[in-house]
């Protein structure tokens, strides 16, 4: 009624305002960035101008375009003449895959243990709660360093180890939500009509608590990215010839005076990515689950 009587420009602005209230510009930018790097990592093989390991010894430490270099190497080249842009694309893919897989592992561990604690209660729950408290009370980075030092480093081990980060928070949330859900009608009804515990937890409770879990997983991703880049920076994460964002910063550090671009672009990507995921995570939390703060 009122809309019809308004001039069309005002309808436009109010619609726009409503749109931006639901989707704040910062969140839109963050989502756009996440979509961008996700596409870059999916199509990495087509986007890379060069092989990320290809040496070009005649063109070492070439400057990037924005610092007066040529278009041969858009973001410059490193100390061995490897193209920084190609390495960056490869690194983005590596870092994202690690962050994503290890968060999935952490979620799998956390959800299983949380459900076990909620289902069996009693001593099982006490043991799991003890493990959760233990995880929260030890310095994970230091333990991870020791494990990597002793067991050597393969990508599989590294991802599994990163998957141990943050499961305790997911387990704690899952346990609380599952205990609450068990007292609600739908879960009791499902088990009354003979659904197995697996079915009750997997098909009924899990979908109902999924939104909170997704928020917790989203907030875990930037932490894993930072952890991975920190370990790779120390030389204990992703091993050459493979490369990751932290790895690039670590090796670029020695050329910071002469060739700062080696270190600059991966650092910017780390910062923008973690920032974007945190912004989206906070926003999702506010939208999906205002109790989780």
């Amino acid at each position, binding site marked *: 009624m009122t809309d019809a009587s308004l001039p069309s420009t005002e309808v436009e602005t109010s619609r726009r305002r409503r749109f931006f209230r639901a989707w704040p510009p910062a969140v839109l930018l963050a989502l756009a960035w996440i979509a961008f790097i996700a596409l870059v990592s999916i199509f990495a093989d087509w986007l890379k101008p060069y092989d990320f390991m290809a040496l070009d010894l005649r063109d070492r430490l070439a400057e990037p375009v924005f610092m007066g270099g040529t278009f041969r190497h858009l973001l410059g080249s490193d100390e061995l003449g490897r193209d920084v842009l190609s390495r960056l694309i490869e690194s983005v893919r590596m870092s994202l895959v690690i962050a994503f897989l290890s968060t999935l592992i952490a979620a799998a561990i956390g959800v299983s243990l949380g459900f076990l604690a909620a289902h069996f209660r009693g001593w099982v729950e006490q043991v799991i709660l*003890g493990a959760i*408290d*233990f995880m*929260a*009370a*030890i*310095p*994970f*980075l*230091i*333990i991870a*360093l*020791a*494990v*990597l*030092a*002793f*067991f050597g480093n393969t990508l599989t081990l590294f991802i599994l180890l990163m998957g141990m980060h943050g499961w305790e928070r997911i387990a704690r949330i899952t346990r609380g939500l599952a205990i609450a859900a068990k007292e609600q009608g739908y879960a009791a009804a499902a088990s009354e009509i003979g659904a197995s515990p697996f079915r009750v937890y997997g098909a009924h409770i899990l979908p109902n608590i999924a939104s909170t879990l997704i928020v917790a997983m989203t907030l875990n991703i*930037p932490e894993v990215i*930072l952890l991975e*880049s*920190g370990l790779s*920076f*120390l*030389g*204990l994460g992703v091993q050459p010839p493979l490369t990751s964002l*932290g790895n690039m*910063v*670590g090796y670029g*550090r020695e050329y*910071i*005076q002469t060739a*700062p671009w080696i*270190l600059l672009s991966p*650092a910017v990507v*780390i*910062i923008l990515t*973690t*920032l974007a995921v*945190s*912004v989206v995570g906070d926003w999702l939390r506010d939208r999906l689950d205002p109790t989780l*703060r």
Partner: protein
Amino acid sequence: MSILRQSSGFLLQVALTFLGLLAVTFFIGRVVPIDPVLAVVGDQAPRDVYEQARRELGLDQPLWTQFAIYVQKVLVGDFGQSLVTNRPVVDDIARVFPATLELATFATIIGVALGVPMGIAGAVWQDRWPDQIVRVIGLVGYSVPIFWLGIVSLLVFYGMLGWVQGPGRLGVFFEDIVRPVTGVLLVDAALAGEWEVFRNAFGHVVLPSAVLGYFSVAYIARMTRSFMLEQLNQEYIVAARAKGMSEARVIWVHALRNVAVPLVTVIGLSYARLLEGAVLTETVFAWPGIGRYLTTALLAADMNAVLGATIVIGAVFIGVNLLSDLLYRLLDPRAT
């Protein structure tokens, strides 16, 4: 009475967590594919020498006995010899640990001095520009890698501007002037009255502790803000305002007193986190603390030193974590 019962429960928790930490390090040290006997006697050792060394190391015992021996040794501070420095690991750690303590303490001071007022400002002017600034600082603190911030700040403030001293803990010309008493250079220099050394040491500690402290500022400000918001909505605040109390008094005296209690826990947690973050910061700033000792040992495959440093950092981390938890329960009679 309840305090007694609480503290005994607390001690049990500390003991269990510590035992868990030892189990993890023990496991790491035993499952490793390096034969610890060969590391002692060498590849060419004859059979009987090998067997004797194996017995001496207690490796012929069952795993449980080995673990008991291991726990016993750790409890008396025996982490074995460092392969690199050829000295007991515990002596090495005692030498480097004060440097880390100095760094983490400075960083915490920065974190509290800036983070608490910022958090309060964010709560008082909620959703206005001071709050936005605090929010941005917080977000940046959660997303910038600490090692990158370290490298860039070193380049800018030392390399370009020359405002601070470079990497390390003390300039070459100032080495060995003051006798180590506490191991904390600033305190030692002040005690000896060597103000030149003090100034130089201060110039070295400022940048790494500011970088490390930034992350604690972000964390403390975020938590202070949310605690403060919670308090400002309480009825006693409305009552105080209704009585005509000045806004400054309401915030800094009444609300802050209630915020202070949970804040103790947050500061404790951030201190523990700083010890962890110190591993990266110390590597960037060539700061001779336990984090750098650990990473150097890692790269040299000096296993005793790695496990020793892991246990010490872990123990301090657990201690600070749980101590701040206990302090919270003691300070707040409502907590159970």
